[in-house]
């Protein structure tokens, strides 16, 4: 079926080509000037009218004028507000000025984009007319517009929502990082001011902030590396173990092993935090105390909390990787192992040279996402011990990662500007990582070769 479709497609393409050739053969208007069309388009729509596309030109003119008439005031006050952040104390809410300013900014960017498109469109049409293209009728024009505009219609609703729910908040936070929004200086009581890079400078020069930042960042990195690598190691070990030919009831064993992934994470983490409770937790009361005659301060000692967190994350994180690995292992041809056995390879050599490369090749990018996931794994840190135990002289607990620290700064300490500044640093780390990851990923390469 498909080959015949292909041929039809080719036939169509050839027809199209012939049609366009015929159009080119029409009388050429070499005196039609694209530059003039562009210049006229400085007033939107006039370039199109010069191109004799009267309806289109008028529509563009009306749209742009309407946009300006309706929104000019809003844009102007919005952008001014973004600069001043309000003038009358106790009356102007700087946060509102900021959000209106950002909206005005987004709208302005859209206006500029459409403006540039309008000029380019006039030029494009003018060039076509100069090359002998005849202006089509209104209906054809509409159909053309519908065809080229259709992808935008599709993307439109999603894009609009994305702008409001993702882009706007991120911009807002970005701007907040350059203001002095703290508990003591918070709207609507007082006005915010732009302070430039002061928050970032404070973060790196004031001892209290710098120490906290260094501690949190280093624990975030240790946490990400250890918790993820350990999960992968456990998953790999168990996947190879349960893939052994001699093991029976494989399906049942695999179902049980995937169970931790299936139970909602927040439920299990809360259960664990009760299990590990210093005083009445079952781990201390039922296991550690009878065996060793002592109790472990799981939630009050920083090192023990970290150990508990890593163990729990392995419990939570290994099943998904285990399932992936199991899938890959089942796909490795037995010939590899048989050939290796003939050469007298040891078990370790078989693992090192056959199993391990297969697993890594098939799941590499997925494992990287596991690292990024744990880097921002807010749930477990927050639910297990709230980032605690607290550390004297710093705003973050001993097990706070960057994201949970930002959360605490925002919702417990009201250090909004500092939280925003740290968010930006977190964003830069994440974006750098993403950049390198996606440069290697498949779809990106496909995109480039399209």
């Amino acid at each position, binding site marked *: 079926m498909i080959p015949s479709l292909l041929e039809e497609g080719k036939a169509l393409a050839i027809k199209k080509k012939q049609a366009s050739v015929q159009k080119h053969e029409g009388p050429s208007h070499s005196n039609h000037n694209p530059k003039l069309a562009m210049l006229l388009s400085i007033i939107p729509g006039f370039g199109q009218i010069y191109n004799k596309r009267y309806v289109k030109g008028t529509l563009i003119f009306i749209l742009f004028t309407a946009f300006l008439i309706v929104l000019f005031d809003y844009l102007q006050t919005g952008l001014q507000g973004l600069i001043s952040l309000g003038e009358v104390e106790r009356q102007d809410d700087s946060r509102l000025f900021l959000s209106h300013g950002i909206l005005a900014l987004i709208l302005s960017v859209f206006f500029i984009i459409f403006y540039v498109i309008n000029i380019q469109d006039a030029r494009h049409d003018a060039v076509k007319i100069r090359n002998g293209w005849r202006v089509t009728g209104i209906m054809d024009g509409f159909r053309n517009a519908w065809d080229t505009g259709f992808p935008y219609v599709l993307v439109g609703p*999603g*894009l609009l929502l994305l702008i409001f729910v993702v882009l706007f908040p991120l911009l807002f936070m970005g701007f907040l990082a350059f203001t002095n929004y703290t508990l003591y200086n918070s709207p609507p009581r007082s006005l915010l001011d732009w302070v430039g890079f002061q928050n970032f400078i404070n973060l790196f020069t004031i001892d209290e902030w710098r120490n906290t930042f260094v501690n949190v960042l280093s624990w975030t990195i240790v946490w990400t590396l250890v918790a993820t690598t350990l999960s992968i190691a456990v998953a790999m070990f168990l996947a190879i173990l349960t893939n052994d030919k001699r*093991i029976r009831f494989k399906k049942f064993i695999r179902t049980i092993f995937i169970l931790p*992934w*299936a139970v909602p994470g927040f439920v299990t983490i809360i259960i664990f935090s009760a299990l590990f409770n210093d005083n009445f937790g079952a781990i201390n009361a039922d296991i550690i105390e009878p065996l060793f005659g002592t109790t472990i301060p799981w939630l009050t000692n920083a090192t023990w909390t970290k150990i508990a967190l890593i163990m729990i994350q392995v*419990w939570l994180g290994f099943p998904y990787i285990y399932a992936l690995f199991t899938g890959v292992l089942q796909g490795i041809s037995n010939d590899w192992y048989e050939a290796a056995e003939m050469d007298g390879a040891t078990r370790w050599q078989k693992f090192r040279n056959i199993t391990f490369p297969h697993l890594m090749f098939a799941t590499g990018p997925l494992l990287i996402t596991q690292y990024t996931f744990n880097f921002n794994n807010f749930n477990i840190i927050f639910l297990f011990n709230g980032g605690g135990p607290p550390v004297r002289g710093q705003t973050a607990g001993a097990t706070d990662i960057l994201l949970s620290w930002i959360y605490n700064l925002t919702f417990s300490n009201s250090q909004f500007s500092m939280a925003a500044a740290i*968010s930006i640093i977190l964003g830069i780390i994440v974006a750098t990582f*993403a950049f390198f990851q996606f440069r290697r990923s498949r779809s990106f390469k496909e995109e480039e070769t399209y």
Partner: protein
Amino acid sequence: MTGKKPISRKTKNIIELTIMYLIIGIVFVIIAYPLLWAFGMSLNPSSNLYGASIIPENWSFTHYQWLFTDPRSNYLIWYRNTLIVAFSVSLIGTLLVGLTAYAFSRYRFKGRTYGIYAFLLLQMFPVLMAMVSLYILLNTINLLDTLLGLIIIYVGGNIPMNAFLVKGYFDTLPRELDESAKMDGAGHFRIFFQILLPLAKPILAVVALFNFMNPFMDYILPRIVLRSPENYTLALGLFNFVNDQFSNNFTRFAAGAILIAIPIATVYLFLQKYLISGLASGATKG
């Protein structure tokens, strides 16, 4: 071959197998213990965890009863709220994602490449990072403490990642299909709804399911958006059981948690193949 070797190989085999089953057994215990413990707690009539054992002496379904019948319990309202959010997010979210992915996969339009870059970048940022601004935004448009506000954020926040998942899948469908349909005079929407959508069912089902499950498991966004207990979703309500006074309500939390964990775990276990492959293709394809 000597007579001794096969025997020693056989014993070696048995020892190895024993060790393997032993390891599997230990892992079973480690996996099952917390879950069974929580189930035991949910049957414990007292609300006190101190000295509670995994098999309570006088077990009862008091907590389950309380959740459903006590006038002070909002459990059913939370269940209803969660279902409202889950259904809306699943429906609207999947439709929007389908449309967006269709455009990115099938059309070459101005700004497409920038759009892809933007999506790639945006999906990396945790929604959590922009909490303050989301709060202020919802406050200004009067959607704070409403389910609608929550739905909007879920739908919008899920677009970048899911759009990539679906776009990757659309890319694998042969383009000749829509080209031949176009020749037969099918419009843009008809190609989408009648040709591509049915073919993309598997991935759309995965996206819809993820969108549906998420409101059951997320407590942090509802915590920021929702204020009054009658607007809570399940996860937030349960979270507050243990968040307010930890030891007092843990058993009640356990009962409520088990009632949502069982259906979700069942769905996950039954559909694990699709869910895992969906997650996997999402990550490798971008």
